[in-house]
């Protein structure tokens, strides 16, 4: 197994409050890793350390290492803009820009200067929308506002937008939590599909979802990593009593 991301001894603080305690974890390439755990245990915080999204919080501080493709992303001189292009992110609530469907996908391509010409741009937007399983639903209304899409479509648009800049890794923070079962199923299928080309880390509150889509699962509690194992093992024969209690719903 080759690690795409390896996290070593990561501590995280919001001001004086420690939110993550000494986390070490390896995320293999082309796999889906799910983070589960009770609310407030630090899943989102941890996910956001992987593309340094927490930099935007003034009181946040981090120690330890997050190594992606052999480079510590917290090393001084790291180009955060380039990092975030490589490590894409999809948020809990879909957050399309107030632009057309096309422009939403084109945005990342344009600012990063990925396309060669107009035609190339069209091609890339189409590919991203196809990869996000949205093309057929929107191909006739690309120039209309993204806000006209349903919640599930908006979320897939956000996935397409993230795919369009050709990341290696996609971080997803409860991407389906605001969606109905059918839209959720579409996202789940998409995640499994995308794993061929990307490394995916997904936060979820839904045990079944973790079991369905992920290869490995990490269970967090109160800022600590309790157990990290292949999903199959995790859900059938966990090492830790706490994990078993959580998975079987003995506490919330």
């Amino acid at each position, binding site marked *: 197994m080759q690690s795409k991301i390896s996290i070593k001894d990561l501590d995280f603080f919001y001001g004086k409050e420690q939110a993550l305690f000494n986390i070490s974890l390896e995320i293999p390439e082309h796999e889906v890793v799910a983070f589960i755990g009770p609310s407030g245990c630090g899943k989102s915080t941890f996910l956001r350390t992987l593309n340094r999204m927490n930099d935007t919080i003034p009181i946040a501080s981090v120690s330890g290492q997050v190594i992606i493709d052999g480079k510590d992303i917290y090393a001084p001189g790291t180009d955060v*803009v*380039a990092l975030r292009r490589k490590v894409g992110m999809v948020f809990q609530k879909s957050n399309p820009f107030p632009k057309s469907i096309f422009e939403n996908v084109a945005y990342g391509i344009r*600012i*990063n*200067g*990925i396309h060669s010409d107009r035609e190339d741009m069209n091609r890339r937007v189409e590919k991203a929308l196809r990869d996000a399983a949205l093309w057929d639903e929107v191909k006739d209304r690309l120039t209309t506002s993204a806000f006209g899409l349903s919640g599930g479509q908006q979320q897939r648009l956000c996935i397409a937008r993230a795919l369009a800049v050709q990341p290696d890794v996609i971080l997803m923070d409860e991407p389906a939590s605001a969606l109905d079962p059918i839209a959720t199923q579409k996202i789940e299928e998409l995640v499994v599909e995308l794993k061929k080309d990307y490394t995916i880390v997904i936060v979820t509150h839904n045990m079944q979802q973790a079991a369905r889509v992920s290869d490995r699962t990490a269970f967090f509690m109160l800022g600590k990593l309790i157990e990290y194992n292949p999903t199959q093992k995790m859900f059938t024969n966990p090492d830790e009593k706490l994990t078993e209690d959580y998975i079987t719903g003995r506490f919330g």
Partner: protein
Amino acid sequence: MTEAATVHSKRRITNLVMTSLTAICAVFATTVLLIILGFIAYQGISSISWEFLTDTPKPVGEGGGIGNAIVGSAMMTLLAAIIGLPVGIAAGVYLAEFGKNWYGNTIRFIADTLIGVPSIIIGIFIYTVVVMPMGRQSGLAGGLALAIIMIPIVARTTEEMINLVPNSMREGALALGAPQWRVSWNIVLPAAMSGIATGAMLAIARITGETAPLLFTALNSRFYNFYYDQPMSSLTVQIYNFATGPFEVEHAMAWAATLLLVGFILFINIIVRYLTRKKH
């Protein structure tokens, strides 16, 4: 790859340039403030004396002061406050307590409209309804003009402050069987009072600096005048007359009067800032 790299470095430069520019804008604006205040302090301080603060304007070369203008400003501001504060606060209470309907929305819209009306128009209005019937300019006319400016401002801040009072407080008292007016008067209003008071202070600071509505309502006077039915001097109109006149001595007096006026207004603003900040 190299192309991507140039795109990237171009973006970095744009980012750096634009983020620096915004910082420069902020520095520029604060510098302008400091320059303005600096000039006022520098030019004004030398002419301030006891005589200046207490005397009336004299013919050029004989000294003189702005004592009557200070008194005039104080008297007209006082009159405006006596009328404007109760009416404004009452209107604000109405908007907050009974104003969630079409009439309240209309009043709210009209109040905002009145706040946006240039103050010179208020002056013209008072001229037609007070000065022309009375046959002369007066402190009364000036004070009324200032009161009209004050009312909508006070009303809107009062409404805002009352809306901040938690509903639980109101419901608690109503549940005890208190009539609505008692709840509003004895519970809600006192709870919002400090906010209303700071709003009132700001409104007073604001009208003290008004010139346009006084120009042809209160006019000006060379003498101490303690009667509201006579033309009355004010700091602002005095500053205007001094500044636009030809004499350097008077220019110096304009700066000194400005120092006094701006000092007062900034003092109130800073106090209010201090008071409202502590609560955060």
